């Protein structure tokens, strides 16, 4: 198979599969943070700051997949 075709398929796969895990994780963490804020509204500031940092950490996984896809599409080491 052509290397460009394989790279395109791999890029699409990397983003689509790689987005599943972070999406589930972000959903869970936001749900947990909502729960905590509903129980303790006075701690909302601390909770949302920690939530933001945690979401950023989780989101990094999806961004890594995006970067892999971009490298495959635009800076592919195999196509020369």
């Amino acid at each position: 198979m052509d290397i460009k075709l394989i790279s395109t398929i791999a890029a699409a796969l990397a983003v689509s599969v790689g987005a599943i895990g972070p999406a589930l994780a972000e959903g869970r963490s936001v749900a947990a943070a909502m729960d905590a804020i509903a129980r303790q509204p006075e701690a909302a500031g601390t909770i949302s700051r920690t939530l933001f940092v945690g979401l950023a950490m989780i989101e990094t996984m999806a961004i890594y997949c995006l970067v892999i896809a971009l490298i495959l599409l635009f800076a592919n080491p195999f196509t020369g």
Partner: protein
Amino acid sequence: MAPSPLASAVLFHLGPVPITRPVATTWVIMAVLTLVPWFVTRRLARHPDRRQAVLELIVTGIMGQIEEVTRKDPRPFLPVLGTLFIFLVTANLSGVLPGVEAPTGKLETPAALAFIVFASVHFFGVRARGPLSYLASFAKPKLVMLPLNIVSEITRAFSLMVRLFGNVMSGEFIIALIVAFAGLFVPIPLMALEILVGVVQAYIFTILATVFIASAVDPAEQG
């Protein structure tokens, strides 16, 4: 094919050094961020006028955030972290202006910023605990953890870079694609989202840098 988001356009050469578009944009942002506070702080008054009040609000807001994370006097960290935050907000939002690309949407600027954070983490760590005690902290709690700790120092700087680059670049990339496919007014909601993402990413970058510095200064305070 769309232009690669990993490459940046060379504007002109300064001797042998090629000056790219993000570098030129960064220079303009630096000039604005230097000149505006300089003019505003020429006549500081005890009863601040409007402009001085805005500046004081920004500075005390950043100080409050740093103090909440580090639970220490924020003054030693304020210059680097405050500048980082203000620069990031300006740089991320500069992409909204017509004809300007956000410099943080190219790989070089986030790499430089992440390197600044990487260096300042060790600077503050050494300054707070002394060089030997700081180096010894990498071998805690056990000597086995030494390679893991060193790798984690590098990967978290790397992930800072990739996170900022990925978020800003993907936003601009999506807007460019939608402009190409759908036309003039369709990407406006996405651009509004991009403003939100830019501010949130600037906040996250700064807060993570604060957390890293706090954990280097005081090992008991792990974020």
